[in-house]
């Protein structure tokens, strides 16, 4: 028996934002268990906001009072470094904004267990039941996202991946309208997600077989010392890559994205399209830069292929879409491709810091604009729920000029038109890639941006230059939360497009230390 047991040292101060979010989620479960039904929402909503904003405040304290840590926390399991803190901040802001959308009960099913179209469902509707479990589930998912982006060993990363994904699988199935579509999306996401987790886990096992450790820094060291076991390393790298690329929705692992984005309740789609993407890029960067950074000779060609395929496929397939949420899903695939260009742009430390800073800025601006766009989607309604089909959006500019104007602005930001935040995001990533010797990729990126601009502009033309249909969709009076989301997102898109300097500098500073090992 090993009697020299050493108690681990845990830096609770550095992990405080994580612990706060998880703690609030646990308290949320207790509220579900003990509070009477009519009071639950009035407990859950403040708790969720306080924990998300409190965690954000804790990050500010960490950065400005204690300083950015220079060593991994919790015995090397979690790395709270500059990029992590920036990504945490981004995720928490995006989550808080998405929760503003989620507070609108109208999007969620009153009783998930009732069979769609049954008498039970009608009873639940009449009774005014609601699943306030949504809030703790969102908090668990957000906590998982935070941990996923900051985990410094593969085991922690896998736990975080599951903590992040499992609540999202559930949340996807809770749409109030078109419930079969929503449940189908949930099951699809679950099955494919479980499959990709399997890939990740098996890749992890093979890497462990190669390096004898799951620690990212340890794997990096083993690359230089272990020899003669390249098959284990290469197969393991490929499998890990499949697991991670699935989560960001890169081609050829993008098939789930349109179905899930379309079926899930729109506020949850907003959370997934922004928060999950940010977290998954954090984890992808950490695995491929920290652990496998010295193996870039082997993974770079594959990543080139994946990036090109993702950009081209996303941009081209988006053109053929007739549903607004599916179109945004394919646009999200294309944007994942643009971000992958930054992942490939590695070189010396200076070059890495530039690429990382570009990616961080891009993630922030893309996330905010995405949440705003989905918020607009929630208020354009038909009798059966949201007006998904693009033909229903014809002439919206004449009936609701302000709303259509804001949406057009978001679409222009996606397209990367100058004076919107999207332009600087794309510019930062592509500039870093061009100096990093990935010029052909940048050219593909710019061309597919142009292709993507076509379908964004097509929606704008449809909204402003078509005659409105006689029985066109109604514009629901947005709830306070939704109005706030649209305002915040539009303001952020303008400000970051006209005056991006402070945030760019912040991203630069966060990236300058690179990932700690």
């Amino acid at each position, binding site marked *: 028996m090993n009697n020299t047991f050493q108690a681990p040292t845990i830096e609770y101060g550095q992990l405080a934002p994580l612990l706060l979010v998880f703690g609030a989620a646990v308290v949320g479960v207790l509220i*579900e268990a003990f509070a009477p039904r009519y009071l639950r929402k009035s407990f859950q909503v403040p708790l969720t906001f306080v924990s998300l904003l409190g965690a954000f405040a804790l990050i500010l304290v960490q950065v400005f009072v204690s300083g950015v840590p220079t060593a991994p926390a919790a015995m090397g399991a979690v790395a709270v470094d500059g990029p992590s803190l920036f990504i945490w901040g981004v995720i928490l802001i995006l989550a808080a904004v998405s929760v503003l959308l989620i507070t609108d009960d109208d999007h969620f099913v009153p009783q998930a*267990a009732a069979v769609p179209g049954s008498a039970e469902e009608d009873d639940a509707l009449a009774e005014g039941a609601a699943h306030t479990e949504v809030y703790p589930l969102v908090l668990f998912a957000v906590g998982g996202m935070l941990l996923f982006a900051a985990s410094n060993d593969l085991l922690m990363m896998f736990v975080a991946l599951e903590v992040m994904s499992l609540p999202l699988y559930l949340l996807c199935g809770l749409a109030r309208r078109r419930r079969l579509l929503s449940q189908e999306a949930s099951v699809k996401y679950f099955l494919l997600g479980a499959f990709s987790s399997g890939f990740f886990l098996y890749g992890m096992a093979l890497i462990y077989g190669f390096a004898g450790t799951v620690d990212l820094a340890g794997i990096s060291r083993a690359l230089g010392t272990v020899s003669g076991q390249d098959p284990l390393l290469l197969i393991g790298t490929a499998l890990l890559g499949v697991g991670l690329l699935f989560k960001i929705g890169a081609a050829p692992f993008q098939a789930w994205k349109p179905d899930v984005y379309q079926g899930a309740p729109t506020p949850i789609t907003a959370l997934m399209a922004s928060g999950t993407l940010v977290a998954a890029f954090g984890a992808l960067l950490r695995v491929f830069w920290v652990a496998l950074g010295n193996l870039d000779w082997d993974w770079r060609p594959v990543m080139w292929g994946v990036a090109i395929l993702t950009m081209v496929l996303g941009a081209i397939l988006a053109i053929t879409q007739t549903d607004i949420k599916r179109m945004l899903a394919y646009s999200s695939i294309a944007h994942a491709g643009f971000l992958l260009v930054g992942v490939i742009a590695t070189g010396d430390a200076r070059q890495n810091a530039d690429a990382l800073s570009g990616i961080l800025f891009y993630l922030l601006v893309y996330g905010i604009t995405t949440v705003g766009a989905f918020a607009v989607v929630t208020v354009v309604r038909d009798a059966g729920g949201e007006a998904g089909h693009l033909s229903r959006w014809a002439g919206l500019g004449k009936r609701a000029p302000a709303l259509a104007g804001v949406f057009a602005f978001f679409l222009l930001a996606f397209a990367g038109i100058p004076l919107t935040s999207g332009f600087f995001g794309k510019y930062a990533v592509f500039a870093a890639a061009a100096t990093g010797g990935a010029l052909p990729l940048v050219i593909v990126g710019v061309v597919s941006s142009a292709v993507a601009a076509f379908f964004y502009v097509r929606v704008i033309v449809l909204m402003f230059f078509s005659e409105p249909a006689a029985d066109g969709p109604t514009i629901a009076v947005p709830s306070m939360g939704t109005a706030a989301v649209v305002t915040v997102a539009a303001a952020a898109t303008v400000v970051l497009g006209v005056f991006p300097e402070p945030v760019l500098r912040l991203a630069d500073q966060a990236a300058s230390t690179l990932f700690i090992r």
Partner: protein
Amino acid sequence: MGGYFGSYALVVALFAIGVAVVAGALFLNRMLRPTRLTPDKLLTYECGVDPVGEGWAQSQVRYYVFTYLYVVFAVDAVFLFPWATVYAAPGFGMTTLVEMFLFLGFIALGIVYAWRKRVLAWT
């Protein structure tokens, strides 16, 4: 076939032998027995009772509560057993005991939730 992966040759050989034994036994049976099929013999064997319905049956979602409770208790047990073998050894002491009960407290939240949602009531 040497070096690291060579040491797996034994595993491959074992698999091959396993496949050979099973396939051989089935093949031998097939060769020795007479084959006279009737519709009755082609029915799916279901404990000697005539099969009912189709193979593709849906199970009730409400059985999830049993899975849920099983997971709560199984996770307890998985971590309790290794802990129980060491916690009394010198060098572990009070901290180990307290930590385990903290962990059990978190797991117990699951049971509290189930209890409040009337999963444990007999209906």
